[in-house]
C-alpha cells in the first residue's frame, strides 16, 4: 500500500483532538481559508472533480448531488447530516463523531457554503449519547470562536448547526425517513420524486450527506480534487475507514485508500479468520448480498470490485463468518431485523419481511419442505423494487444470495418425508 496521509482518523490518537484547541493545533479549520476565496459553484466543481462518493451506502457522487439544489426558489436551503449509523455490521461513524467532531463541522461548513445553506441539522441516532454531547460541545466552541454563527471568519457567510437526537429506528437512516423524523413525525420514507434536493426538509431544498462523506470534504478543498483522486482507484478515489467484525482475530477499523485486496485486509489487518476457515463475508453492512470465500479471493475494497462481484460496497464494514457458521441462523437474524425495522407503510415490505421471518422460523423448526425455500425466493421477488424505499430490497437481496450460495445450510432443516396431504379424507 502506498503511503498516504490519514484524513479521517488523524486525530483519533491525538490528546484532546476532539476539542477546538486540539483541532486547531492539528490543522483544523484550515480549509476554510481557501473555501472563502472560492465561489460556491467552484466548490461544487472541485468536489465533482474529486469523484467523492457518498459513504452512507448508496455511493452517489457527492458533487453531483450538491449541484441538484435549485438556487432560485426563494426558500431556505437545508443540509441534513445522516449520523443515524445503524446498518448492522457498521460502526465507524460512531468514532468519527466521538474523536473528531470538529472535522464534521468543518465539512458541514464547506457543504453549506457550496449549496448556499445557512442551517444544518445533524441527525444522530439516539443511542449515541456521548457523541451527541461531544458534538454539542464542539458546536458551542466553534460558535464562540466564530467558526459558526454570523459572518464566519469575516467571510460574510452565516451558518447555524443543530444536533437532532433520534430515538431508535433504523429506517431514519433512509434519507427521507430521516427528514420525516426531523419534522417530528414517524420516520416513514417519502415517495420520490420529488427528490429532497428540490423538496426536502420543511418543503425546502435539502441535501442529505453521510458523516464520512462530509468529513472527506475539507481535505479535498485544502489539497484539491486532483490530489484526492490520486488516492485509491479511479472509480473509488480517496480514503475510507474500513471495518471488520464477526469471526476475525482482530476486529476494528482502519483508514486506508480504496483498492486493497480484500483478503490482504482480512489477513493483515484482521489477523485472519477466527475459529476456522472463511465461509462467507457480508462486505458492507447487512443489506449487501453475501459472498462466498471463493468470491472474496479476487475482491478489492472498492465500489467497482464489489459491484463486479454482484454485491455492494455499502458502508465498507465487513462481517466475517467462519466455516462453522450456520447461514440459516444468520439469515434468521436478518429477517428478524428487517421485519422489526420495516416502517410498515408499504405492503410488500411490511408483509414480505414478516413472511420471510415466519418461513425461516418454520424451516429452522424442522417443519418445512423445499416448497418453503422456494416460497422464500418468491416472496423476495415480490419485495424488491416495489416499495417506497429500499428496506424491502435490503432483505430480499440477502435472502436470495444466502439461499443461492448456501442452500445446503437451509436444506438440512427440511422435513425429509414430503408426502403430500391428500385433498380428501378417503
Amino acid at each position, binding site marked *: 500500500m502506498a503511503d498516504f496521509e490519514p484524513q479521517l482518523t488523524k486525530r483519533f490518537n491525538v490528546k484532546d483532538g476532539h476539542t477546538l484547541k486540539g483541532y486547531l493545533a492539528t490543522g483544523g479549520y484550515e480549509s476554510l481559508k481557501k473555501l472563502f476565496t472560492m465561489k460556491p459553484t467552484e466548490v461544487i466543481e472541485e468536489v465533482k472533480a474529486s469523484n467523492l462518493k457518498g459513504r452512507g451506502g448508496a455511493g452517489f457522487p457527492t458533487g453531483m448531488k450538491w449541484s441538484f439544489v435549485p438556487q432560485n426558489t426563494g426558500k431556505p436551503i437545508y443540509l441534513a447530516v445522516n449520523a443515524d449509523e445503524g446498518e448492522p455490521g457498521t460502526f465507524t461513524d460512531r468514532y468519527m463523531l466521538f474523536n473528531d467532531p470538529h472535522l464534521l463541522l468543518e465539512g458541514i461548513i464547506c457543504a453549506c457554503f457550496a449549496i448556499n445553506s445557512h442551517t444544518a441539522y445533524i441527525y444522530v441516532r439516539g443511542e449515541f449519547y456521548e457523541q451527541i454531547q461531544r458534538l454539542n460541545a464542539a458546536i458551542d466552541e466553534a460558535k464562540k470562536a466564530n467558526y459558526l454563527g454570523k459572518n464566519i471568519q469575516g467571510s460574510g457567510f452565516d451558518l447555524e448547526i443543530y444536533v437532532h437526537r433520534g430515538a431508535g429506528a433504523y429506517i431514519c437512516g433512509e434519507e427521507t425517513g430521516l427528514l420525516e423524523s426531523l419534522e417530528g413525525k414517524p420516520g416513514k420514507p417519502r415517495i420520490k420524486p420529488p427528490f429532497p434536493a428540490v423538496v426536502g426538509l420543511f418543503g425546502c431544498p435539502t441535501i442529505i450527506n453521510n458523516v464520512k462523506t462530509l468529513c472527506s470534504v475539507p481535505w479535498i478543498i485544502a489539497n484539491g480534487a486532483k490530489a484526492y483522486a490520486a488516492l485509491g482507484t479511479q472509480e473509488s478515489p480517496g480514503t475510507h475507514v474500513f471495518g471488520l467484525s464477526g*469471526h476475525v482475530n482482530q476486529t476494528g477499523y482502519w483508514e486506508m485508500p480504496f483498492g486493497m485486496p480484500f483478503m490482504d485486509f482480512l489477513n493483515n489487518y484482521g489477523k485472519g479468520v477466527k475459529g476456522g476457515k472463511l465461509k462467507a463475508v457480508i462486505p458492507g453492512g447487512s443489506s449487501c448480498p453475501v459472498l462466498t470465500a471463493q468470491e472474496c479471493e479476487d475482491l478489492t475494497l472498492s465500489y467497482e470490485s464489489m459491484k463486479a462481484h454482484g454485491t455492494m460496497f455499502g458502508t465498507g464494514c465487513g462481517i466475517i463468518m467462519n466455516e462453522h457458521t450456520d447461514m440459516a441462523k444468520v439469515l434468521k437474524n436478518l429477517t428478524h431485523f428487517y421485519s422489526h425495522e420495516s416502517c410498515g407503510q408499504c405492503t410488500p415490505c411490511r408483509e414480505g419481511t414478516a413472511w420471510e421471518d415466519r418461513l425461516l422460523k418454520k424451516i429452522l423448526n424442522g417443519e418445512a419442505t423445499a416448497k418453503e425455500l422456494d416460497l422464500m425466493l418468491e416472496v423476495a421477488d415480490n419485495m424488491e423494487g416495489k416499495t417506497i424505499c429500499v428496506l424491502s430490497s435490503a432483505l430480499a437481496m440477502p435472502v436470495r444470495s444466502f439461499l443461492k450460495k448456501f442452500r445446503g445450510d437451509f436444506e438440512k432443516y427440511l422435513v425429509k418425508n414430503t408426502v403430500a396431504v391428500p385433498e380428501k379424507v378417503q
Partner: protein
Amino acid sequence: MKVEFKPEVKKEFEAIAARYPVRRAALLPALWLAQREFGFISTEALKATADLVGCSPAQAMETASFYTMYQKQKPGKYHLQFCQTISCLLNGAEDVRAAVEKKLNLKDGQTTADGQFSLQGVECLASCHTAPCMRINDEYHENLTVEKINQIIDELKAK
C-alpha cells in the same frame, strides 16, 4: 394523574423549538425531555408533551410509538439493552443474554419486582467490532462475556 413540565424545562424546550421553523419538528426533543423528567412516556406525559409542542396527543402518540427508545412503561433503574443483531450473534450474544435472563429471572420487556433492572432486546448498536455489546441506560458495555456481565450486574446490585 396530570403531570406538568417545570417552568425551567419549558424554557429549555423553547430554546430547542427555536432551532426549527416549524414547532412540531421539536416533538422528538420534547419527548426526550418528557422521558428525562417523568421517567417514561406515560399517557399523562404524552398529553403534557403535546401541550408543550402544540400538537394533538394523537400526533404525539403516533411519533412516540414509532421509536423504540421512548419507554412506554417505567423501566428499571438499570435498563439493560442487549444488541441481538448479526455481529453480536456471531460472537456469543445469545449466551450472554441467557446468563442475564437466568441471573435476574427476567425476560425481554420485563422489569424486576424491586424495580432495579429491566431488559430490552435491541437492534444493532453500531458496536460490531466489540461484540457482544449492550447499553445500560446511556452507557455502552462492550466485549461482553458471561463472566463479565455477571460481574457488572453484581456491581450494580451492590450499589
